[in-house]
């Protein structure tokens, strides 16, 4: 098989491709064999031990051994087992880990093969892998484990994906289009369910299809199962095609919100399939049930979200477990909703969306990163596993293939989706300001993918009540395969062909942020003048309410006063700083530059003179933050170099205990100055309060007597930098950072002037807090000065190590969104 594969590989990357494919195939074989081993051993055990469980068996052993000791002197003593194999002891976790490993390795493997991942969406490949593994297991003669067990799916595999989606849901576009989304989700799904179910029943009644035993209600049940657009599949496919935000949120939002409808319809038809008929009362009850399911789910989610936000208010001393609260509260929201047969998905979405603004304001930056990465990791693994299991389950499950039923299902689904979308858009467009074009409609219709939820729901059906269950399952699987493979593979070329607007990669600028806020206020004002209680009016009211009451309760410390714009601005500066540092590996100074070139001299070359007049920088908190963030990120680069430094050679920083911090900071400062020259846009340099590390460093370097206190300490002669302090007349010190040593050709001398430190108490407190934070453990909190000190005091180095492994935020649009629309 590998030879054949090698023959097909392109000449260019032949060996690599070969290797990649070889690796894949070997992995599949390996996993398959181990799993068959596992599958093989379990029936043995279960056969031997009817009471079940290896545990009992061991007890048995012990019991027998004990009886050996007591009662028999005639048995020969067995040799002491030096090495023994006890697979079933660890069987279940081992197999789970194997599956997860398989999933992750597959993901790795696909990206090693560059061409493949651009043609075929990942979901298809994963299903194929699942098919292969299932096939292998079957070939080995073992019974394929029922991996897509509904409990496993609904309780373990689905929640991470939904939580990830809900936590990072872009609230503003979601809320702006909520009417459309709800229409598609509720009315669209209902239409699909009844259309497909009804027509299927009609088809079944036709003579000659041998399907006449299928009743109406099971058909409707089948229709409701198959009509729901699946969030997992949509996410998997849409992630790769990068269409514009509007379409993405429409399809995705629909896939999330139709869960309530599906739950109600499913339970309704399942309940009454036994009875055989549905009365009008039942229908009314169904409607009420729908309202309860959806609103109840949202309420449960919101309650848990508020609880989580409230809890996060008090976590400033135990930062390490902050992410845990996010996950546990969300999961409990899901489980609680499922307990009452409410919509778990909506609960999870509501929980994530409600808790996010407050939790993010409270938790440290690293916790935020942790939450983000854990969610992404879990959801990614879950998604991969789901698709693989789909493949395995296809191989495993008993199939009852009926050409008519299956083909009619597939066709009807497509037809009903198209009719539904077109019809609904016609109605919706009357109420929308930005209408949906035909292209949009096509994408929405074509993007209605079915996935594993449908399969699991089908799997849940009772075998006795529904004798045609296997046929249903086969049809469901076929539909899923059709949508994922055919629609999933072709949607990308179609998007390109139709020139659908793609996602705009550029980030939000501060201009946009300011102007959109301005326009929000403007529109609210105009609405007030018109006396019209519109969209903006309610949004404004919600914002005010939020600011006045909720934020006070749920956000720790003084941060609730921080306006959204400032938070956004800081985030942006931070991101820019990180980008700058990560992209600019070296200093791009012209080599002909003589040493001791002042910043002011450089500027006119890059900017018109008018701007150079502003060369005397002003210091703002924002700049300070930015610099600190640059410094922080620089730690990642400089850490390796610094490892070799002997801690005894560092000068003690009187305000902190970390001896190697000092040198780190020195290095950071150097890097910082180098980066500053690159940042031709920025002329402002931060102010540092007198007791900040900047000043400490400066004071120390200028020969303070602190040095002398630490016996034996010697300052490492830093060839690249030294700091001077000049006290200016109004008591604000200036720092002259001289990067030049006479021999270094490329050096910059920057004159920073500190403006009046007319900071308010809050500002000062914030700065201090920020300073301490940066040194303590790189948290980005701006307030609560001194609070963070205590907790990080003990473990400076581990803190640093932890922070260094922080890869930093990635460029994601969600980050740019203001917390509240």
């Amino acid at each position: 098989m590998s030879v054949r594969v090698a023959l097909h590989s392109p000449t260019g990357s032949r060996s690599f491709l070969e290797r990649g494919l070889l690796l894949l195939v070997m992995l599949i074989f390996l996993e398959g064999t181990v799993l068959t081993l596992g599958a093989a051993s379990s029936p043995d055990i279960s056969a031997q031990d009817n009471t079940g469980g290896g545990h009992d068996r061991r007890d048995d052993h012990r019991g027998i051994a004990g009886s050996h000791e007591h009662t028999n002197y005639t048995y020969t003593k067995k040799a002491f087992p030096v090495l023994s194999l006890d697979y079933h002891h660890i069987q279940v976790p081992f197999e789970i880990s194997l599956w997860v490993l398989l999933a992750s390795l597959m993901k790795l493997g696909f990206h090693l093969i560059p061409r493949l991942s651009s043609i075929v969406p990942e979901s298809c490949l994963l299903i194929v892998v699942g098919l292969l593994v299932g096939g292998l297991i079957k070939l080995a003669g073992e019974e394929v484990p029922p991996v897509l067990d509904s409990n496993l799916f609904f309780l373990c595999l689905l929640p991470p994906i939904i939580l990830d989606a809900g936590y990072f849901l872009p609230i503003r576009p979601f809320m702006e289009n909520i009417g459309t989304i709800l229409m598609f989700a509720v009315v669209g799904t209902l239409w699909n369910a009844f259309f497909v179910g009804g027509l299927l029943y009609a088809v079944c009644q036709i003579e000659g299809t041998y399907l006449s035993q299928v009743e109406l209600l099971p058909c409707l049940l089948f229709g409701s199962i198959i009509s729901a657009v699946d969030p997992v599949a949509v996410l998997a496919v849409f992630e790769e095609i990068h269409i514009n935000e509007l379409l993405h949120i429409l399809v995705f939002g629909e896939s999330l919100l139709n869960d309530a409808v599906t739950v109600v319809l499913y339970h309704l038809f399942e309940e009454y399939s036994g009875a055989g008929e549905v009365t009008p009362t039942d229908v009314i009850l169904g409607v009420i049930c729908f309202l309860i399911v959806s609103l109840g789910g949202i309420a449960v989610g919101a309650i848990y979200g508020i609880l989580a936000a409230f809890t996060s208010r008090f976590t400033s001393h135990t930062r390490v477990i902050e992410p845990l609260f996010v996950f546990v509260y969300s999961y409990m929201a899901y489980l609680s909703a499922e307990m009452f047969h409410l919509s778990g998905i909506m609960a999870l979405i509501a929980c994530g969306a409600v808790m996010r603004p407050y939790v993010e304001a409270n938790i440290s930056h690293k916790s935020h990163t942790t939450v983000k990465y854990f969610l992404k990791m879990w959801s990614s693994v879950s998604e991969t596993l789901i698709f693989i299991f789909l493949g395995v389950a296809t191989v495993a499950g008993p199939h009852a293939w009926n050409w008519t039923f299956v083909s009619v299902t597939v066709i009807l689904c497509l037809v009903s989706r198209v009719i539904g979308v077109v019809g609904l858009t016609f109605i919706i467009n009357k109420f929308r300001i930005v209408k949906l074009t035909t292209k949009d409609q096509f994408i929405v219709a074509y993007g209605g993918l079915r996935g594993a939820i449908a399969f699991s729901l089908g799997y849940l059906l009772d075998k006795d009540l529904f004798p045609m269950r296997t046929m249903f399952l086969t049809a469901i699987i076929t539909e899923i395969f059709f949508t994922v493979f055919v629609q999933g593979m072709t949607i990308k070329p179609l998007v390109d062909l139709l020139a659908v607007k793609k996602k705009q990669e550029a980030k939000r600028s501060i201009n946009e942020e300011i102007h959109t806020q301005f326009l929000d206020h403007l529109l609210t004002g105009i609405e007030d003048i018109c006396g019209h209680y519109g969209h903006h009016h309610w949004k404004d009211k919600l914002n005010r309410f939020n600011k006045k009451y909720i934020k006070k309760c749920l956000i720790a410390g003084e941060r609730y006063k921080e306006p959204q714009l400032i938070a956004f601005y800081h985030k942006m500066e931070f991101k820019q700083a990180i980008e700058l540092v990560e992209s600019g590996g070296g200093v791009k100074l012209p080599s002909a530059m003589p040493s001791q070139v002042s910043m002011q001299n450089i500027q006119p070359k890059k900017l018109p003179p008018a701007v150079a007049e502003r060369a005397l920088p002003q210091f703002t908190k924002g700049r300070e933050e930015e610099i600190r963030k640059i410094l922080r990120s620089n730690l990642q680069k400089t850490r390796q170099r610094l490892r070799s430094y002997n801690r005894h050679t560092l000068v003690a920083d009187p305000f902190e205990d970390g001896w190697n911090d000092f040198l780190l900071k020195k290095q950071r400062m150097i890097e910082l100055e180098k980066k500053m020259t690159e940042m031709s846009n920025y002329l402002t340099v931060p102010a540092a309060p007198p007791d900040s590390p900047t000043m400490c460093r400066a004071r120390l370097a200028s020969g303070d007597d602190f040095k002398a206190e630490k016996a034996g300490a010697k300052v490492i002669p830093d060839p690249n930098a030294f700091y001077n302090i000049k006290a200016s007349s109004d008591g604000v010190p200036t720092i002259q950072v001289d990067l030049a040593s006479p021999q270094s050709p490329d050096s910059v001398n920057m004159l920073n002037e500190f403006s009046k430190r007319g900071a308010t108490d809050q500002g000062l407190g914030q700065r201090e807090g920020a300073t301490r934070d940066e040194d303590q453990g790189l948290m980005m909190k701006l307030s609560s000065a001194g609070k963070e000190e205590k907790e990080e005091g003990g473990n400076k180095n581990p803190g640093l190590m932890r922070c260094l492994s922080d890869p930093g935020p990635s460029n994601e649009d969600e980050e740019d969104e203001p917390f509240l629309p």
Partner: protein
Amino acid sequence: MNWPLYVTPAHIVRLYDRFEALDKEKTGHLRPQDFGAINRLAMNPIGDRIIGAFFSPGQETVDFHSFVRILAHFRPADKKHPKDPSMPEPVNSRTSKLKFAFQLYDQDKDGKISRAELLQVLRSMLEMQVTEEQLESIADRTIQEADLDKDDAISFEEFRKSLEKVNIDHKMSIRFLR
């Protein structure tokens, strides 16, 4: 006065009702005090600018026609009516909307948003919750981002360009004036 306002009779009736409700003294004109009586407008950080926009320079009162003309800016743009280059720009086109917003920033009407004007807007929007340095820093950054011709001010074109990704039609439209 000759601009086609694309306002339907139903709109005019509604707006006239509102005009009368605001015009407490039944003079047929609105004065700044009448606008100021709207409570929620007083809470709006840029409320006074909005009120100022209704009054042409030098005028003390607003008649109904001007009232409607200003509000017609906020109609959703008509995609159905083809753009006729001979006709003047419809008052609810994207450009007109942006121009209206721009004029709210540009109080001295010199065609540019200077740094000081931007600072004023920021100050009123951020409602004293931030320090002066932060404001200046943000203003600096804003101008740097948008200012393409490096004149330390934002002209209308630069303003428009910085908002090119924002769906102005959606953002600056009031539904009931559809």
